[in-house]
């Protein structure tokens, strides 16, 4: 009897399903959403995959776009979601959402409500990328990319590859919210825009470049590429990218350096003007990948001078960012946070008036740039005729002012 009952129970358990189960093909899987402000209403744009149209590599055909972009409007986000749901006729599934693109207008009005909605939702996940789009977010989601089937896929690919080019910060909801709640830190987010492709009449392309600057949850301005690089240098997010160093002799000749690694450190000390002083130390190393005919690459002294040059360039970039931050009175570099963490007592005095005080801070920047490798060749291949004609002149050392003097203390200058 007992055995039979247990068999029955086991069998019974197989017949049970989930209370609110919903088969996969009855669901609309949302990969990314865009939120815009249209008039007084919120316009929600979702990119929904069409499973039937996403073909594997090698398969051809499929009708039209593999994704479907649909919109819904409402005064609140939930109303917009419901509006969208009635237009799609399926249960919307948000748990696979990877990107939230916020349109510029909405971002200026404040993105707090949007983040709150997704923070609160049962399926909300804080590792969802947050981007601000120039113009409408809808446009971003509607853009087709060549290599990826779905444009959200393109966005996430761009975000993942950002460490390759370091042109925008990669910020997800978690980081953004943490910035917002940390004293003395203005949030930033990646900036995305579309631009016509270079070839004539080509379709628009997505670009993830620059960064959006917030005060609390409101967009106030954005950083251009140089300033964004400064931001990434200072916050230790510059993981890879190119730094162009002009030849010491001739500005039109440019070395290209691939940065492979960078670190940054912020230190707070007492400043002269009674305010704290910040010392930012940036370290980076990289390899030379393109060299013009300039200098002797086999000479460690010359490499040293190039390193110094690079450090100077990085410093200029950081200074551009700094002056922007001062102009905006927005502490997106986290100086306040550093003071709060190290000297909480002092911070409690500074905090009420921080946005006014912040630009007066003294900031000392120290950059240490290293060139580790120069690639497979030593010097670039010379032009044949030049060799014949100028063989002797070439042997004369290119005694540019930059490396005839010691590039660093204790440098041995080899007479040629």
């Amino acid at each position, binding site marked *: 009897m007992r055995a039979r009952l247990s068999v029955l129970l086991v069998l019974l358990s197989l017949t049970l399903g989930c*209370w609110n189960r919903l088969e996969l093909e009855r669901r609309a899987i949302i990969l990314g959403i865009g939120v815009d402000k249209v008039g007084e209403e919120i316009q929600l744009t979702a990119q929904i995959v069409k499973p039937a149209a996403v073909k594997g590599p090698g398969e051809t055909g499929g009708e039209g776009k593999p994704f479907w972009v649909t919109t819904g409007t409402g005064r609140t986000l939930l109303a917009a979601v419901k509006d969208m749901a009635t237009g799609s006729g399926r249960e919307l599934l948000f748990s696979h959402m990877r990107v939230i693109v916020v349109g510029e207008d909405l971002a200026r009005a404040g993105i707090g409500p949007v983040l709150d909605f997704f923070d609160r939702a*049962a399926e909300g996940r*804080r590792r969802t990328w947050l981007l601000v789009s120039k113009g409408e977010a809808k446009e971003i989601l509607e853009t087709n990319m060549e290599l990826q089937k779905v444009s959200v896929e393109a966005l996430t690919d761009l975000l993942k590859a950002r460490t390759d080019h370091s042109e925008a910060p990669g910020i997800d909801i978690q980081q953004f919210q943490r910035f917002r*709640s940390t004293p003395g830190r203005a949030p930033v987010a990646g900036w995305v825009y579309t631009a016509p492709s270079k070839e004539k009449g080509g379709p628009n392309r997505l670009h993830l470049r620059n960064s959006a600057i917030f005060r609390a949850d409101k967009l106030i301005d954005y950083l251009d590429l140089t300033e964004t690089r400064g931001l990434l240098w200072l916050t230790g997010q510059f993981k890879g990218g190119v730094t162009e160093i002009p030849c010491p002799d001739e500005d039109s000749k440019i070395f290209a350096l691939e940065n492979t690694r960078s670190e940054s450190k912020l230190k707070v000390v007492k400043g002269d003007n009674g305010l704290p002083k910040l010392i930012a130390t940036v370290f980076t190393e990289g390899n030379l990948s393109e060299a013009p005919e300039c200098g002797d690459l086999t000479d460690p002294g010359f490499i040293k001078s190039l390193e110094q040059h690079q450090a100077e360039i990085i410093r200029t970039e950081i200074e551009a960012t700094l002056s922007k931050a001062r102009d905006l009175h927005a502490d997106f570099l986290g100086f306040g946070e550093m003071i709060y963490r*190290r000297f*909480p007592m002092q911070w409690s005095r500074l905090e009420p008036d921080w946005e006014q005080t912040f630009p007066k801070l003294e900031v000392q920047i120290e950059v240490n740039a290293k060139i580790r490798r120069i690639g497979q060749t030593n010097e670039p291949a010379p032009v044949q005729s030049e060799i014949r004609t100028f063989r002797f002149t070439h042997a004369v050392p290119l005694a540019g002012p930059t490396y005839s003097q010691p590039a660093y203390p204790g440098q041995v200058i080899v007479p040629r």
Partner: protein
Amino acid sequence: MLEKGKISNRQAGWLLVNTILTTSILFLPSMIAREAKQDSWISIVAITLLGLLAALLITSLGKRYPRQSVIQYSRIILGKPLGTLVGLVFVLFFLYINSFVIREFSEFVLTLFLTKTPLVAVTIAIIFVSAYAVRSGLEVLARVNELILPIVLLMVILSLLLSLPDMDVHNLQPVLARGWFPVIKGAYPAAIFFAETSVMLMLIPFLKESKRATSAALKAVLVVGLFQLLVILGVTTQFGLEVARIKFPFLAMTRYISVFDIIERLEPTTMLVWVMGGFIKISVFFYCAVLSSAQLLNLKDYRPLVLPLAALLVLGSIVLWDNVLELSWQIARSIIPFFLSVEVGIPLLLLFLTRIRELRGRKI
């Protein structure tokens, strides 16, 4: 004797760990962080010390009556009418705290996973399983726990390890910037969790070595304190001040996990910890409620009480609180003095009276 089984001291310790750990991992970090902010971990250290004291108190009382539970010996200490009253308080306490845990359990499942399932369905499901475990007796419960606890602890460790890349120790700074008061205030709601060793008041008579109950209880509190400390450090270094805003930081942490884009969204680990640990916790309190009422009523067997009390618990867990806010408000504020006076206050009083009696006995 109502319960014929015996459990080893180690099994009792494991039961305690699971009883205290499960709910505290999910609910405590946010509750503590509301007051203590980034110093939550100091609160945990402080409250673990207090938890050790409570465990010492509870077991040294229980050890004086190694063959009896608190329901029985409170009658000896206080006399029949008063002792019965104290017994009744304990019965009500076990029923109330269990309704509480069951409601917490269901609310968690409902908020995050089965959003459209009715409350009563989840509640009945968990009580049904627990009732079965309780009917099978303490020995069975202890052995099931020996299977479950390692899984629970492993899941916690796994989640923390996989979250390591997202942690930033700077979030712990500044330390004690606002002094000790917020730290103490943050530790306050944690007290009722760490005083849950009071279930030992019911379990001591069934230990193989009742005399050495103290070390089992102390070890259990230490293990809970350690894990709680690790979890608090994990979520604070990851979320910073956001911990106070997020209701279930541990869940948010497991959701945030992403290792090489391959291992993602590990919230099933949280679900596993919660359902398995919650089952043990509910069963332990259920067992205490059933056993204490049987002893209060001088029954020969506690089994007939299991189903009626199960029904009462379903009812209680649903009607006692209107919404999840009332629940969390109560646990963080109003209920604490009452729980503490039962968990620690009454044992302290009983121990005090026993000591006086012992001293007098020696004099005479």
